[in-house]
């Protein structure tokens, strides 16, 4: 079938999809990224960088398997170091994808339709990166399956009263549910690719993955129910995951960790960094692939607003955290926060306050939110700030706890950095494979945004 000529106007400021699209041109434009268009240099560059960094991860993982976790800078008392910092950071990034795909679906926010697919992919790959760290951090990663309760000859079972075991269940459930939710969302679009590809191998692969989807009205009806139910299940799940991650801290009695507002504070921080990652991915992708008609300035602006709102919650948490330390009357809590602000990690502390609280205040200005370049920069600033926040919580509290004689500072080694950048490589590698092989925007959901998709009043019975 001959592709239609694209006649797309520049989208107005408030529009979530440019005028002039038809069902056909939407399909062509999104599937062309995968099927026909020549792969842009940007793709090769990003994929290449990801691939190189991934090699760093492999080398450091091999070394870690051979020599043990001593290659990292973790020494008593800072035994969590980078590994758990990176774990919390990555899993937080994942949260925005589920927020966009599930919570915004339940809230009937139509603008989510053109960003949910790649945001969900982002979730999946971020959770994959996150999951690596606790496993690598175990010391004997090949025994990771001991985390699960299974009948074994040692007659030993996990301790279900430990938040670390809760975390295993929360994160593995989150990974599984995100994966199936993402795949269910892909089925109709896989059908589209199956019908559109000219490549025989592609026809088979997409055909098998689409499982014979034919767009039957009976199927759509069940499909819509399934999407709603999965969203309803994913919504409490996503809120629970970072809550459980925060239990890893709050249930311990380490000063600076043992507080009841960690769950909402962590969830807000997760969504904050996640939307920053959504922007950091969406802004380059839409300009490279010319998708400004589908991912419009409105999307970027809305994401900026979500960042501002969650950033303010995070700011409030920082203030409350410090206030509560003072108000608690506990010298240990007070000491922990005084150390954060003036101690050996003072530079990191004030840097993260600048990144997470001061800099995002620029998002109040519409002009700032309208500029993709500035938004991109602010998303990188927030991502760095949120990484530092987790670093601060973990390292400063562990380095200087109750007994000054046991205090010791954390120094990251080159393998700490290689593992961290290696997971960024893994993320880029997986994400750009996804962009190349699967439709990064949900085609069928964007079709429903068109005015043509509305069935007129005259046919209503």
């Amino acid at each position, binding site marked *: 079938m001959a592709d239609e000529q694209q006649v797309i106007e520049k989208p107005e400021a408030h529009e979530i999809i440019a005028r002039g699209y038809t*069902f056909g041109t939407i399909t062509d434009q999104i599937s062309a990224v995968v099927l026909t268009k020549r792969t842009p240099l940007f793709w090769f560059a990003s994929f290449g960088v990801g691939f190189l960094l991934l090699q760093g991860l492999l080398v450091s993982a091999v070394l870690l398997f051979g020599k043990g976790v001593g290659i990292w800078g973790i020494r008593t008392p800072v035994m969590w170091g980078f590994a758990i910092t990176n774990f919390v950071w990555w899993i937080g990034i994942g949260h925005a994808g589920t927020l966009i795909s599930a919570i915004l679906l339940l809230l009937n926010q139509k603008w989510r339709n053109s960003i949910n697919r790649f945001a969900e992919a982002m979730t999946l790959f971020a959770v994959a990166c996150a999951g690596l760290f606790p496993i690598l951090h175990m010391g004997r990663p090949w025994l990771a399956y001991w985390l699960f309760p299974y009948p074994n000859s040692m007659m030993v079972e996990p301790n279900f009263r430990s938040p670390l075991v809760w975390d295993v269940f929360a994160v593995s459930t989150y990974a599984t549910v995100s994966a199936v939710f993402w795949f269910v969302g892909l089925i109709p679009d896989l059908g*589209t690719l199956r019908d559109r590809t000219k490549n025989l191998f592609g026809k088979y692969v997409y055909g098998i993955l689409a*499982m014979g989807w034919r767009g039957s009205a009976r199927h759509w*009806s069940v499909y819509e129910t399934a999407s709603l139910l999965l969203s309803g299940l994913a919504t409490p799940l996503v809120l629970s995951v970072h809550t459980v991650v925060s239990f890893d801290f709050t249930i311990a009695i380490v000063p600076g960790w043992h507080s009841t507002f960690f769950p909402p504070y962590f969830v807000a921080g997760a969504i904050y960094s996640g939307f920053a990652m959504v922007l950091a991915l969406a802004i380059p992708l839409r300009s490279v692939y010319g998708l400004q008609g589908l991912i419009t300035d409105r999307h970027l602006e809305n994401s900026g607003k979500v960042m501002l709102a969650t950033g303010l919650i995070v700011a409030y948490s920082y203030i409350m955290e410090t206030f509560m330390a003072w108000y608690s009357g506990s010298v240990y809590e007070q000491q922990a926060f005084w150390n954060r602000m003036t101690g050996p990690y003072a530079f990191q502390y004030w840097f993260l306050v600048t990144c997470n609280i001061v800099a995002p205040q620029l998002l109040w200005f519409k002009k700032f939110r309208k500029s993709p370049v500035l938004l991109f920069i602010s998303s990188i600033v927030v991502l760095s700030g949120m990484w530092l926040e987790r670093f601060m919580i973990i390292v400063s509290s562990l380095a200087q706890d109750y007994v000054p004689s046991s205090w010791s500072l954390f120094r990251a080694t080159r393998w700490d950095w290689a593992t961290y950048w290696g997971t960024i490589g893994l993320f880029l590698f997986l994400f750009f494979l996804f962009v190349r092989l699967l439709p990064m925007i949900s085609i069928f959901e964007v079709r429903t945004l068109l005015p043509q998709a509305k069935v007129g009043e005259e046919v209503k019975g």
Partner: protein
Amino acid sequence: MKEGVYGVMAEFDNPGALVSATRAAREQGYRKLDAYTPFPIEELNDVMHLHKNKLPLIVLCGGLLGGLTGYLLQYFVTVIYFPINIGGRPLHSWPSYIIITFELTILFGALSAVLGLLGLCGLPMPYHPVFNVPRFSAASRDRFFLCIEAADPLFDVEKTSSFLSTLEAKEVSEVAH
């Protein structure tokens, strides 16, 4: 009924025409029919009376099963199979079971939603007669199809085809088995 015919299919180029045609076919008494569209159309559910399906029930059962599994697993391990005194807490320390019970409820619920979706739709189904219509590949792009199946008691290739031609259809074709 002619041997080797699955049904007759009409093609439309907008969702409104498809919905009116489906309604007209229902009013003619056809029941074994299905519409094929590139995106979900709410009004088709009204016309084809598709508002109820068993999926919520399946997910409810899956979720309950997951919750029970989670709680009983922890109860069995901490009370019966591997009782161990941790910080003087009672063996049946139910508040610490809440998280895993919740997570397994969600996990089983979500998996039963996906399996239920596939089961109720009869997927995976690599072959289906509608794919024999050459223009059907546009059903995943920008065309809307209505297929009246030969299994319908009122079905007659000639009559049904001419009936469908009266409904603003762009094209009417027979669907081979």
